[in-house]
């Protein structure tokens, strides 16, 4: 009998795997130079597509209204947290007249952190209940 993939597992796989791949690729790209650097992004994209196809082809639980509601709540909260963080950084920058150059990899890591935060909040709501 084929087992159904639980919705939580599916969401975790769809979130964590790409994030880990991005982090590993970023770290490897920083260490290596040359040919490998150029194909690192492509490697990540192939893995994303593979994960997307795998999780969508495998039979899984339905995304019911509780899950949708929890995703919405998690999205709202992570959006608020991100805005507050950005606001605080801006306040700090204005107060101490600081300017920092943020590199692209750091920006990507920030995005990955937001993504993981969103997943953590979703799981919190989903496990605790409304």
């Amino acid at each position, binding site marked *: 009998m084929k087992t159904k993939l*639980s*919705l939580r597992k599916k969401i975790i796989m769809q979130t964590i795997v790409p994030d880990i791949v991005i982090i590993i690729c970023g770290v490897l790209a920083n260490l290596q130079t040359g040919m490998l650097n150029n194909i690192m992004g492509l490697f990540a994209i192939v893995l994303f597509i593979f994960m997307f196809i795998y999780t969508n082809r495998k039979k899984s639980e339905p995304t*019911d209204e509780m899950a949708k509601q929890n995703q919405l709540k998690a999205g709202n909260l992570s959006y608020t947290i991100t805005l507050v963080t950005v606001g605080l950084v801006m306040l700090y920058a204005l107060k101490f007249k600081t300017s920092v150059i943020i590199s692209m990899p750091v920006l990507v890591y920030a995005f990955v952190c937001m993504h993981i935060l969103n997943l953590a909040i979703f799981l919190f709501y989903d496990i605790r*209940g*409304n």
Partner: protein
Amino acid sequence: MPKMITRIKEYRAKNNMKQEELAQLIGVRRETIGHLENGKYNPSLKIAMDIAKVFMVSVEELFQFID
């Protein structure tokens, strides 16, 4: 804030039904049924009516709000 109490667990036991089976019948996850039974999730009218239909009772019989 009024607290919601449900009699889903009671009716499920009467019908000798598992959470998983009820979840499949109304097209939701088992976790949703668990949260519903514990009063941790306020369902939509559709889900409430679907559950009532499964047990052949009225929605008021299954869900009550107490102050």
